[in-house]
């Protein structure tokens, strides 16, 4: 075991791991974080805490992660390279580790253009791969990037994102391989709606044996309505929603669409768990955290293992 991370322990045990997501509020509202976290408690092994998600200012991932720790939940501390340089990044990592945060997710972050601070400078002193390398160096060699020794180095379980659906598709396996080479321990994928395409990607992953070098958690997001399905299909870069799924959502009455979305999500999990190399699920119920217990239970992922 590389770290004390509960997520690492579950994954290493061979059980399917489950993570959820908590988007911090746009204000000093600890109760919002606590309410969302409370809904997930007991149903997931760890909770991703997003970092200025969609390039909008929110309570910092660090601060919100500390609230989760206080509730004895295990945060996956997300960090984007868009907003801080390598000094702030490394400072935050040792700070977070001091608060008992031992799992993180390394991302480049949405471009500022998509948020409400399009005028902001995007830092990108490092990219997500270089962030993975940095965190691994801090953990395994006990060194800051500048070469100095770290006293009590942070033992972080290192995650990253993987998008099997973006273009060029043929590059997507190679990109995962590159993250593995940089030192990633687990990846959470972009929301999967096109399972056929995901299977094709996984075939490529298995051909290269990557599934034995990194834990792959399949990302799922329940859709609330046919409108959301259409929006994700047409407007969100890097998400692939097949036409049949939009049709299926639109085919049921409006008041039944939310339930249909949950059903689709559970069916997806059923199918995805059959795929060799899938080690768990990342359930991103965006502003819909209360549905996570139902999804976890109905998908047969409850109770969560005690490790």
């Amino acid at each position: 075991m590389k770290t004390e991370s509960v997520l690492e322990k579950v994954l290493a045990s061979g059980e399917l791991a489950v993570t959820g997501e908590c988007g911090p509020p746009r204000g000093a509202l600890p109760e919002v974080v606590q309410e969302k976290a409370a809904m997930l408690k007991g149903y997931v092994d760890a909770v991703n805490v997003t970092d200025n998600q969609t390039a909008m200012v929110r309570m910092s991932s660090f601060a919100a992660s500390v609230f989760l720790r206080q509730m004895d939940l295990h945060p996956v501390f997300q960090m984007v390279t868009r907003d801080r340089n390598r000094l702030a990044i490394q400072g935050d990592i040792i700070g977070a580790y001091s608060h008992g945060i031992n799992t993180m997710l390394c991302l480049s972050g949405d471009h500022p253009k998509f948020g409400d601070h399009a005028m902001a400078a995007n830092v990108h002193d490092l990219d997500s791969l270089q962030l993975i390398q940095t965190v691994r160096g801090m953990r395994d060699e006990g060194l800051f990037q500048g070469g100095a020794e770290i006293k009590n180095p942070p033992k972080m379980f290192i995650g990253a994102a993987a998008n099997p659906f973006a273009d060029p598709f043929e590059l997507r396996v190679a990109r995962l391989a590159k993250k593995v080479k940089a030192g990633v321990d687990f990846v959470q994928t972009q929301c999967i709606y096109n399972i056929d395409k995901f299977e094709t990607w996984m075939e490529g992953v298995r051909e290269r044996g990557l599934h034995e070098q990194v834990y792959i958690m399949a990302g799922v997001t329940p859709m609330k309505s046919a409108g959301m399905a259409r929006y994700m299909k047409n407007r969100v870069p890097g998400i692939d929603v097949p036409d049949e799924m939009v049709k299926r959502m639109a085919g049921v009455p409006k008041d039944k669409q939310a339930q249909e979305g949950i059903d689709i999500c559970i069916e997806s999990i059923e199918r995805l768990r059959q795929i060799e190399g899938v080690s768990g699920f990342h359930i991103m119920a965006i502003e819909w955290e209360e549905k996570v217990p139902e999804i976890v239970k109905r998908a047969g992922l409850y109770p969560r293992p005690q490790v």
Partner: protein
Amino acid sequence: MITAERKPMDEIMGMIDGCGRILLVGCNECVTVCAAGGRKEVALLAAGLQMASMKKGRALDVREMTLERQCDPEYVEELAPHIDQVDAVVSMACGCGVQEVARRFKKTPVYPALNTKFMGASEGPGIWAERCQGCGDCLLGLTGGICPIARCAKRLMNGPCGGSTNGKCEIGNDVDCAWHLIWERMKELGIEDRYEDVIAAKDWRTGRGNGPRKILREDLA
């Protein structure tokens, strides 16, 4: 080349408000090629400023000059005989030229008529696009001759990110995904295997990270 675009006329007119006589100075180098501050653009701006002043019933004497290179003291010196006769200089060079004129003539205000944009190449008549950010440590040899620092919206040295769609960047359909281009080029060159070499975190000291940069060639100094 260094590319530039003329500032809005309101802004230029605001800067020279109150001036009776100005020296409008173009540059024969980059800004001539990108049609922003050469002899012709100087003439067009001079006519525009004069017309705008006359419309308000005010006299404005505009003297036009275009230097061979405004970023070179040798050529800037050519302004010396005229400088005392004007209230201000309006420069149509890039930021380098404006600063050279300001450095040489301490008592005359110098105003920029252009916004300096980027180092780029011409993609066709009337189109210029960014190509280089002058990071001081060229990695084009690793990326198939396409710069991810200048051409990826996130400056990713190990891209593409998850937002690349049909060869276009997530920030807009009119922006090529630099990493898609790099990948296609690597395939053409038969060096796909190099894609998986992780490009290490960059030492930005060679760029702006270490303060303003200077080159000293002792054999020429």
